[in-house]
């Protein structure tokens, strides 16, 4: 591989890669992201390689281990191109048949296809599956198509052409204007306009400037940044190089969570390959512009996702935030102007440069442009990563794409924005999701976590969960956050354990106001959101805990017990077989009984019963 010296060199190479990749050729794409990894991709891959060899297909079919396809609930996913035949939940045993029938004969194996749970129909092509049909995958689309460890694949899909366009046809100021016009806002939390951040950083005093990518992905329940870095790190790198050119920076960092080993690995390979082609490093494509990127692995502290803490952590120090009267765009890493953007924000940049800011600004709502990737998880049928235009309603995301709530349970709330976000009840399901609308109902966009909850989730327990999380993650340097969150946690724990008192709700509200106003950084300032929204929308649940000493959802163990409904129980005996404590007894075909002294409220019987005969009392 020799370094590309000019725009022309790049274009020749790109055309060569395009030619080599006949769109009609046979490709088997297998999702090798972390999600599918946990569902057994490795074994499927081995079986596939073996079977291809056995059938003498080596060289005739290309096997591609791609990044995340998004529909993680159905993993491991195998897609066979050019037709795009989609096989979900593939096991190694399925491979011989898939190879023999679909790859050799082009036959579709009906009973291995995805079955739509609503229409009960089998669907052969990925793009026709309701989960994908209503998405607009501009950021995520290439994830299932390219081999993340082969830069040639990315280039063959016009990868790095936005960089070429920016370097050779636009001035840095023009790049900044384009980003401003596109209306792109930060995808990592605050939703700050990216173009303005870049402009301020470019104009700030200083000789050295830095650009950074925030891949700390602190929101537990969100994993789009991980999937992007694993599946298409070049799109993030390309965005960073363009940003660095616009800002006037020669050194970049990607701060990645250490819990993401595959993302670290694939990003490292991506950087190396880009360097080999001269797309990173000195004199990029002969343009005279230099830029290098270094990976920094985080140490597992939520607060390090905050910009000032992240930069301290990059300096090798303890990641404690500082007050932001001096912004990091003026004085950040090593006291120099630094522009920090989220992974997804960076990945949007090449798309804007390639397609033009007007096109980008035509997607979304008035103040929120483009698309957003959400991680749709929790009590929803189709879990996975969903990319939709800003302004798509919660209902569309949860019901049309997500397939609704499984096991005939009732929707209760959706939590957005992670620990800094809030819970949104059923009344707002038609809310178009954008930065402003989410803020209006007390939540935030955050990084795009969307956790769906059903009737079996207790809202007080959830508030306690988030407050506990933040109590543990608070860096401890400012009193309102350290002490305030601890007090909230104690009150909420009391409520969940049946020791709640009249006045606790009001006390929580008072504490919340104090913490929000006086905390030093974003962690404390947003910490009370989950408490405030659950009090606002689910006050009766708090009151049931405090006054009636009951947990209606059956989560807080001190506040409920299970009973068998004698009318509904037909004595199938399943619960008794499953109970780990032998607490359920009864003759077959007779109503059963639960021994309260033995019961540990593990909920196994409740979940096992097919007749709804186990009641929460």
């Amino acid at each position, binding site marked *: 591989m020799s370094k590309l010296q000019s725009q022309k060199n790049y274009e020749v190479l790109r055309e060569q890669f395009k030619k080599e990749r006949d769109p009609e050729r046979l490709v088997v794409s297998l999702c090798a992201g972390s999600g599918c990894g*946990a569902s057994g991709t490795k074994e499927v891959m081995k079986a596939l390689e073996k079977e291809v060899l056995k059938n003498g297909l080596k060289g005739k079919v290309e096997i591609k281990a791609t990044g995340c396809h998004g529909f993680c609930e159905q993993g491991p996913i195998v897609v066979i191109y050019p037709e795009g035949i989609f096989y979900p939940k593939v096991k190694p045993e399925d491979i011989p048949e898939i190879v023999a029938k679909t790859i050799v004969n082009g036959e579709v194996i009906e009973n291995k296809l995805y079955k739509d749970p609503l229409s009960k129909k089998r669907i052969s092509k990925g793009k026709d599956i309701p989960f994908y049909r209503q998405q607009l995958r501009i950021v995520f689309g290439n994830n299932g198509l390219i081999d993340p460890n082969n830069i040639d694949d990315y280039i063959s899909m016009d990868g790095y052409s936005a960089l070429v366009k920016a370097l050779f046809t636009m001035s840095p100021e023009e790049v900044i204007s384009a980003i401003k016009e596109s209306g792109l806002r930060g995808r990592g939390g605050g939703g700050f306009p990216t173009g303005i951040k870049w402009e301020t950083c470019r104009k700030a005093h200083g000789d050295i400037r830095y650009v950074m990518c925030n891949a700390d992905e602190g929101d*537990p329940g969100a994993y789009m940044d991980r999937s992007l870095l694993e599946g298409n790190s070049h799109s993030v790198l390309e965005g960073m190089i363009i940003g660095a050119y616009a800002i006037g920076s020669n050194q970049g960092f990607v701060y990645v969570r250490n819990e993401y080993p595959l993302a670290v690995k694939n990003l490292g390979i991506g950087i190396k390959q880009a360097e080999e082609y001269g797309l990173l490093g000195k004199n990029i494509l002969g343009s005279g512009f230099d830029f290098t990127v270094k990976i920094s692995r985080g140490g*597992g502290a939520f607060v390090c996702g905050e910009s000032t803490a992240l930069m301290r952590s990059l300096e090798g120090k303890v990641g404690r935030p500082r007050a932001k009267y001096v912004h990091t765009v003026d004085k950040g890493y090593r006291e120099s102007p630094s522009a920090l953007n989220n992974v997804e924000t960076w990945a949007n940049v090449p798309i804007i440069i390639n397609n033009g800011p007007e096109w980008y600004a035509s997607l979304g709502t008035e103040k929120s442009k483009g698309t957003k990737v959400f*991680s749709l998880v929790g009590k929803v049928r189709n879990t996975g990563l969903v990319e939709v235009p800003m302004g798509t309603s919660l209902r569309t995301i949860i019901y049309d794409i997500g397939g609704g709530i499984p096991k005939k349970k009732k929707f209760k709330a959706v939590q957005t924005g992670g*620990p800094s976000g809030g819970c949104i009840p059923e009344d707002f399901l038609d809310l178009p999701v954008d930065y402003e609308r989410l803020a209006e109902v007390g939540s935030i966009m955050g990084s795009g976590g969307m956790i769906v909850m059903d009737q079996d989730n207790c809202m007080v327990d959830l508030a306690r*969960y988030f407050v506990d999380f933040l109590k543990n993650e608070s860096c401890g340097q400012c009193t309102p956050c350290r002490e305030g969150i601890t007090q909230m946690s104690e009150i909420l724990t009391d409520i969940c354990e049946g020791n709640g008192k009249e006045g606790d709700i009001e006390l929580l509200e008072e504490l919340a106001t104090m913490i929000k106003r006086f905390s030093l950084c974003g962690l404390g300032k947003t910490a009370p959101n989950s408490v405030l929204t659950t009090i606002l929308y689910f006050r009766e649940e708090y009151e049931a805990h405090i006054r009636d000493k009951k947990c209606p959802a059956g989560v807080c163990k001190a506040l409920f017990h299970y009973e068998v409904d004698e009318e509904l129980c037909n004595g199938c005996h399943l619960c008794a077989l499953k109970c780990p404590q032998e607490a359920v007894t009864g003759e077959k075909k007779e109503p059963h009984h639960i021994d309260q002294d033995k019961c540990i409220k593990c909920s196994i019987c409740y979940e096992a019963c097919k007749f709804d005969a186990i009641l929460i009392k």
Partner: protein
Amino acid sequence: MERITAIKGELQVKIEPIDTVYLDKVLEQNMQDPENLIMILQDVSAKYNYLPREVLNYVVERLNVSMSLIYSAATFYKAFSLKPRGKYIINVCLGTACHVRGAEKIKESLEERLNIHEGETTENLKFTLETVRCLGCCALGPVITVNETSYGGLDRGKALKIIEKYEDEA
């Protein structure tokens, strides 16, 4: 150079000798730059499963930084432990997506099975039970990892079976 460490009172464990070749390589890869301290500690942790005191002394000497700086980083970041950990580190994800699908119950059943609490190591140094705030496999919750391998879609029974597999192997 062999080292004997006592944990949990009477228990004696033999730990590998301090591997200066490995440590020098790590320090070199990180340009002996204190700015890369966190990554250096991660590599130490990857080798020893924790941060042994003697190794930290060596790092202090080579980086020319104070022990208090290293100690502050080692206790601030969750990735580090100052106590020896087991051969298999089990991480139970308690992230939101896993929480709403009953991760707590998985944790409880593992605690019961291994007879240790979160953050502790079994006496035979086989398992350490830890929790993590998210593993990025949220669609498959509840999720646990054993060292680098992830397991998703768990319930109590499935989680216990996984542990049995590791218990059974010699």
